[in-house]
């Protein structure tokens, strides 16, 4: 093997061939355009208040510029695209996940603090002291709305609350409003100007039945008085003024005008809280330190299911490796037997389960194991008169997973073992035959010891793969049946990965922080396995 120092490879001078010159310039242009595009992304993220993502693309763009402009880094140009891809889609998500694990990011703490604030500030409520009854009058061009005030100004004198005072000021004592003809069609909120009515409307109002028919359109109406007060539908017979519910104070707190209380931003929990400690949702994500990890290890409703799933994950991965290895090894030894005919056909048929896309064969098994209609239970019923509940009994569900996974996984082991057995020198078997050794002696005294060493790293990789075998669980059982008494969605057949996925994406709570903490723990385990694998495989680079 030889190695080259690429920076010596490319001639420094201007190339004699025009095509090569143009290619170089085109490449430089491409790199420049990419850098500019990345910088534009950086700016866009920065302006939208996403500092982490801005930083990510800044690093990426800077690395691109440096690698492709310095001659010393000529070799790195070849690996840059792949390394950048990994950095962007493997390493960054990993770091981001670890970051999330120290926060309370969840479906109730999703938006940034500013977004929460602006969302609360855009909330409105109905001022009930000033409601208007309404009636519809049909005209040629649509309907005309006539509003008549029902609520009376509060008579308690000094005890008028802020919202009521605002409504009274805007109404200026007007008690009747009317609109022009409005066509009640179309979707989406519509703003309609109303003005004080001079007198009683003419004609017969529409009956309740027709009002109900117009209900959807009426609910979309926003009626604005000349002073800018907005009225909305507040029931089948009423319109009422909508007022801003919250008022921003200078010290950052919010004043709730409906319930007359002060909300203070609590940066420990990520919620606005009242004096009584009530939390107003939505909240925003804040750092909570090791809370998520503490919950996994200390909260009994989480720790119990977590340990159960942890043990099952190890058992599942270990048993899968054991079973697939056993089946694959025995078959491989049989297929290596010189005297056996038709080996090519056997081999092709035996690796069929490997050739069928896994998501299809897993779903086939899901149908076959169905308790009432599945073929397996039909056969068992005919033979023994039993119909096991494969999806409802935890232990049956677990054994079903192992059966299916052995079916899916043994061809890989078969292929590996066949490859390795071929490299065993044949005279060992000759010598064994001379000594009177049978096939079993050969199997356990010669074949197995000789292939187990090169096989070990592959077995560890296989273990790690099944440790994270999300697709099988998601498509076959979905983790069910559930563990009783767990406070997070946890199933008896869940592996750690599918458990994490369910916490993050399936539960109503969508607790990304907790899911990220478990993901981080899994990463530590898997990274340990990978290091062990590197050590055992004696990888040299």
């Amino acid at each position, binding site marked *: 093997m030889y190695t080259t120092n690429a920076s010596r*490879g490319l001639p420094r001078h201007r190339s004699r061939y025009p095509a090569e010159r143009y290619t170089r310039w085109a490449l430089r242009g491409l790199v420049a355009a990419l850098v500019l595009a990345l910088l534009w992304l950086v700016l866009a993220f920065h302006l*939208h208040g996403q500092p982490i*993502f801005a930083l990510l693309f800044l690093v990426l763009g800077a690395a691109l510029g440096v690698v492709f402009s310095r001659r010393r880094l000529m070799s790195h140009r070849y690996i840059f695209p792949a*390394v950048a891809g*990994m950095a962007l*889609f493997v*390493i960054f998500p990993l770091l981001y996940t670890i970051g999330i694990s120290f926060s309370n990011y969840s479906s109730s703490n999703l938006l940034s603090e500013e977004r929460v604030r602006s969302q609360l500030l855009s909330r409105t409520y109905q001022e009930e002291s000033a409601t208007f009854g309404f009636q519809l009058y049909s005209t040629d061009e649509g309907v005309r709305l006539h509003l008549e005030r029902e609520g009376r100004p509060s008579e308690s004198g000094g005890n008028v609350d802020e919202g009521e005072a605002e409504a009274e000021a805007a109404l200026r004592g007007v008690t009747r409003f009317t609109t022009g003809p409005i066509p009640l069609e179309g979707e989406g909120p519509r703003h309609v100007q109303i003005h004080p009515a001079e007198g009683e409307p003419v004609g017969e109002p529409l009956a309740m039945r027709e009002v109900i028919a117009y209900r959807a359109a009426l609910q979309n109406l926003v009626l604005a008085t000349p002073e800018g007060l907005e009225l909305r539908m507040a029931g089948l017979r009423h319109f009422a003024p909508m007022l801003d519910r919250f008022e921003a104070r200078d010290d950052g707190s919010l004043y709730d005008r409906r319930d007359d209380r002060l909300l203070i931003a609590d940066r420990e929990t990520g919620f606005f809280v009242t004096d009584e400690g009530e939390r107003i949702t939505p909240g925003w994500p804040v750092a909570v330190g090791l809370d998520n990890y503490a919950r996994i290890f200390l909260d009994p409703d989480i720790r119990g299911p977590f340990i159960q799933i942890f043990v099952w994950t190890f058992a599942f991965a270990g048993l899968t490796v054991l079973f697939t290895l056993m089946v694959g090894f025995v078959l491989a030894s049989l297929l290596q037997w010189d005297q056996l005919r038709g080996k090519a056909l056997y081999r092709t048929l035996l690796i069929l389960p490997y050739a069928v896309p896994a998501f299809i064969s897993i779903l086939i098994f899901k149908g076959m194991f*169905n308790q009432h209609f599945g073929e397996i239970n039909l056969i068992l019923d005919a033979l023994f008169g039993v119909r096991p509940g494969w999806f409802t009994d935890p232990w049956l569900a677990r054994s079903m997973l192992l059966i299916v996974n052995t079916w899916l996984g043994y061809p890989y082991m078969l292929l590996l073992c066949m490859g390795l057995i071929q490299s065993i020198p044949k005279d060992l078997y*000759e010598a064994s035959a001379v000594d009177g050794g049978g096939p079993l002696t050969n199997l356990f005294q010669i074949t197995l010891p000789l292939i187990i060493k090169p096989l070990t790293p592959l077995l560890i990789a296989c273990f790690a793969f099944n440790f994270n075998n999300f697709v099988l669980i998601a498509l076959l059982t979905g983790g069910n049946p559930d563990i009783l008494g767990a406070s997070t969605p946890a199933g008896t057949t869940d592996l750690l*990965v599918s458990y994490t996925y369910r916490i993050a994406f399936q539960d109503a709570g969508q607790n990304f922080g907790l899911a990220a903490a478990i993901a981080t723990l899994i990463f530590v385990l898997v990274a340990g396995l990978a290091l062990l694998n590197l050590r055992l495989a004696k990888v040299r680079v």
Partner: protein
Amino acid sequence: MAMVQPRTLRWRKLAAHLSLCGFLVLILFPLLLVISISFREGNFATGSLIPESFSLEHWSLALGIPWERADGSVVQPPFPVLLWLWNSIKVALVSSLLIVLLSTTSAYAFARMRFAGKGPILKGMLIFQMFPAVLSLVALYALFDRLGQFVGWLGINTHGALIVASLGAVALHIWTIKGYFESIDGSLEEAAMVDGASTWQAFRYILLPLSLPILMVVFILAFVMSIMEYPMASVLLVDEHKLTLAVGAQQYLADHNQRWGNFAAAAVLSGLPITVAFLICQRWIIGGLTAGA
């Protein structure tokens, strides 16, 4: 050929054949069953392995053609299977082409060049590759959600996002190709470079044509992996007409409404081409698997 032959050889051969055939029956039962069900009437109808009531209804529906029953009622296809298959193939083709492109150039540098950080980068790639994408789905979702605000074709519910996301999984392929490059004698390129070829030219005109077989293997492996990818597609894709086959197929067997017969036809229809392609390429795929391992 062994010199010493035990006398019981014939019995042993017979036993081996019998046990292999028995095992094959057990293994192939699910596959044969699905083919049989796809030609059988009704969803979840019970019956023998050889269909008694033959019907092409499920096949017609799987191909997207409405089926008229004997009583005159017309059944509409429940899901756009062919569209899903096309989505899967489209995404898999583009992403495996890009993966081959990226991993070949990187593998060349890793195999033939000396540069700072080579060992740590290679080892680091292997370790990070073992971390499954399922676990960082929240982060990936956030990334594509934000990217989609500025770059439309990279947002949630686009195939672009799915293709780009698969580019993170190149480490295994880089290792495979690197192993193959190292098995090719470097003196060929050295000779070319003595004659005045640049590094790139030596790579493009000498090494690349020699390594076409391994590039095919990596392409097929990446293609199969991409077709079977489930978790990322299940989170990134939302609309029914955007789904890939792996995500869409499970809708046939929803917990409360299992369409076993329709699923069987769709499964055979979409699984067969992949299976046949795999069996045709099996020799190279096996080589690639053991080279990468």
